[in-house]
C-alpha cells in the first residue's frame, strides 16, 4: 500500500509510543528523570551505611580515648585517613559515630513528630469547631517561637545527652507536623469519599485512620524529610553551643565547635564535619523536593 507523504515523514516510533502510552505515567520518562530522587536518596543511604554499618565491619580507631601522642595528625596519615584532633582522636571515626547521633536524633524526632503531630492534626480537623481552633492557636504560639530558642531552653532544663536533645526537638517538631496534618485533613475531610465512608457506617476514628491518614501521608512524609534537615542542623547547633552530647562524645556539632577554635592551624578539623553536615542537609532538601514533585498534587 502506497505510503502517504505524511506517513513517510513521521518517525517510526508509533508502536513504541502506543505501548508506552498504556503504561502508568511514572515509568514513561525513564530513569534519567528520576535522578532527582535517586541521587539524594543514594547519598543518604551511603551516609547511613557509613555511620551505622561500616564501623561494625571495619575496625576503626575508637572515637574517644585517643593517645595524645597521635594528636593533630594531618589528612591522609596512615591509620587515620582524615587525621586526628588535638587530643588524638581519629576524625573519621568521630565523624561516623557523630553521624550516628545526628541520624538517630533525626529519625527519632521526625518519627515522634509524625506520629504525635499527625495524630493531633487529624484529630483537630475531624473535631472542627472551637476545639480545633483552640488547639491550632496553641500550636501557633509554639511555632512562633524560634525553634533553637525553645530547644536550648528545654535542653538547658533537662541536661545534656542524646535523649534530652530528642525530647527538646520533638517539642519543636510536633506543632509543625500538626499544622501540616491538619491542613491536609481539612482538605480531605470534605471530599465525597469521606462523607460516603461515614455514611457507610464507619465511625469517626476509623474514617480518620483508614481514609484521611493514607491520603495525607505523602504530604506528611515530604514534610518529614524537609524537617529532618532542620533537625540535623538544630542538633548540630545545640551541640555547637555545648548543650548537646557532652565531650568527649562525638557529634558533628561539637566537632565543629572544637574545629573552630583551631581553625587557622588545622582547618581540616573544622571543614570535615562541616562539609559532611552540608552534604547531609542538601541531600535531605533535594530529596524532599523530589518527593514534592512526585506527590505534590494530591487529588
Amino acid at each position: 500500500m502506497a505510503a502517504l507523504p505524511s506517513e513517510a515523514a513521521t518517525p517510526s516510533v508509533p508502536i513504541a509510543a502506543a505501548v508506552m502510552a498504556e503504561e502508568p505515567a511514572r515509568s514513561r520518562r525513564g530513569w534519567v528523570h528520576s535522578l532527582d530522587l535517586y541521587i539524594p536518596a543514594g547519598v543518604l543511604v551511603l551516609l547511613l551505611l557509613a555511620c551505622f554499618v561500616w564501623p561494625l565491619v571495619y575496625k576503626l580507631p575508637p572515637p574517644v580515648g585517643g593517645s595524645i601522642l597521635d594528636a593533630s595528625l594531618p589528612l591522609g596519615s596512615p591509620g587515620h585517613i582524615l587525621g586526628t584532633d588535638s587530643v588524638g582522636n581519629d576524625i573519621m571515626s568521630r565523624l561516623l559515630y557523630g553521624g550516628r547521633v545526628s541520624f538517630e536524633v533525626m529519625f527519632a524526632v521526625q518519627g515522634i513528630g509524625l506520629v504525635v503531630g499527625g495524630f493531633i492534626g487529624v484529630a483537630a480537623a475531624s473535631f472542627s469547631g472551637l476545639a480545633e481552633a483552640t488547639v491550632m492557636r496553641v500550636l501557633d504560639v509554639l511555632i512562633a517561637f524560634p525553634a533553637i530558642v525553645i530547644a536550648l531552653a528545654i535542653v538547658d532544663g533537662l541536661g545534656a545527652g542524646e535523649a534530652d536533645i530528642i525530647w527538646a526537638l520533638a517539642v519543636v517538631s510536633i506543632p509543625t507536623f500538626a499544622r501540616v496534618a491538619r491542613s491536609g485533613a481539612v482538605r480531605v475531610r470534605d471530599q465525597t469519599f469521606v462523607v460516603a465512608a461515614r455514611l457507610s457506617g464507619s465511625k469517626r476514628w476509623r474514617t480518620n485512620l483508614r481514609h484521611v491518614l493514607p491520603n495525607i501521608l505523602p504530604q506528611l512524609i515530604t514534610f518529614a524529610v524537609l524537617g529532618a534537615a532542620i533537625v540535623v542542623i538544630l542538633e548540630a547547633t545545640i551541640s555547637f553551643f555545648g548543650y548537646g552530647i557532652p565531650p568527649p562524645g562525638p557529634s558533628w556539632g561539637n566537632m565543629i565547635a572544637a574545629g573552630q577554635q583551631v581553625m587557622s592551624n588545622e582547618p581540616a578539623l573544622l571543614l570535615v564535619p562541616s562539609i559532611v553536615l552540608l552534604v547531609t542537609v542538601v541531600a535531605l532538601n533535594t530529596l524532599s523536593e523530589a518527593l514534592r514533585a512526585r506527590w505534590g498534587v494530591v487529588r
Partner: protein
Amino acid sequence: MTTLNGSDAASGVAPLGIGGVATTETTGRPTGEKVLLEVRNLVQEFQIRNFGGVKGGVLQAVSNVSFEMRAGETLGVVGETGSGKSTLARSVIQAPPPKSGQVLFEGVDLVKLGRRQVAPLRRHLQMVFQDPYGSLDPKWRVNDIVAEPLVAYKDGDRAQRRARVAELLELVGLDPNIHGRRRPGQLSGGQAQRVAIARAIALNPQLVICDEAVSSLDVLVQAQVLNLFEKLRGELGLSYLFIAHDLALVKQVSDRVMVMYLGKLCEVGPSEAIYREPLHPYTLALLRSIPDPDPEVDQVNMREVISGELPSPIHPPSGCRFRTRCPRAQERCITEVPELQMLRKDHLVACHFPLPSSAEVAPGGGAPTAPAWTPGMTQGVER
C-alpha cells in the same frame, strides 16, 4: 415501566393533610402501601461567612419542603442547579442535619435522634453520589470499598464478607476477579459508579438516594447504569429518591416527580401527568427547554422560554419565588406564598395561577400558543 397510582378516587381539590402535604388518607391511594419516608417542613440554611469570619446573609437552601415516599417507588427530584435538590438529599441522610423539620424514616424522626442513634439506621438509607471517582477513596481497592459497610456494621466474618462482595460486584455487572483488585483510578466512570452502587446496596437498604448519580457519565453509560438501577429495583425491592437536573432522564426512571425551584417545591405528581399536563409554569419551562430533534418544535418551544437568572438564595423573592421569571405572575404572587394544593388526583402544585389543562383556554395574559406538551416532545426512549 411508569405506573400511575391505580386508584379511582375523585379528582379535584382534596382536603389537605399536615402542612399541605397530601397524606395517604387524603389522596385515596391504596392504604396497603407503606410510607417509607416522610419529610415535613424541612428547612436547611447555611450561614454565609465573609472574609475574616464575619457573618453575611443566610443562604436558604431548602425552605419548608414536605413530601412522602412509598416503599418500592422511584421519586424523581428535578430542578436547576441551586434549586436545593442535593441539599435536600443531604438533609434527609442527616449530613449535615437540617435546621428544622422532620424526616420520618419508617416512622422514626431522624432529625431528633443524635448522631449516635442515627448510625444504626443508616444501613437502611444509602446514597450514591454524583462524582463516581470522588466518592471512592483513591487509595483503596474495590473489594475493600464495597466491603466497608459490611465491616462497619460487623456483618459476618471475613470469608462471608468476601463472598458477599463478590456477589455484589457481579450483581452490578463487574467481574470480582478482574475489577475487585483495582483501584478507582483504574476504572472507567461507569465502572466506578457501579462500585459506588455496589457499596450502597451492600447492606440491603430500603431507600437509595441517587444524587445526580448518572449526570457525569456518558450517555451510553448512563443508559447502562439506569438499567442497572431498574434491575436492582426489581430484584432487591429498592426505593429510589432520584435527583437530577435532566427532566427527560427523570421521566424515564421515576414513578412520581417533584419539581423544585430555589428551595421550594413547585409541583409533585406522577411522571406521566407532569409531562403531559404540567400545572406549574416552571415545570412547563423546564419541559420546553428540552431540545427536540425537530427544529420547528424547538422554535415553538423557544418562544416561551423563561428569561432572567436565578435569584439569589440569600435574598429569595417574596411570595412566590418564581415570580421574577414567571410570565403569569401577578400582584398576588408578590405578597402571598403559594402552598401545595392538589388540583388533580395525586398531583400537587404550589402556584396561584396554575396552568390550565390543554383542553381549556386560559383567560388573561401568558396563554401559550402551542399546546402545553405533546407526546412528540418526549426526549429519550419510551419505556
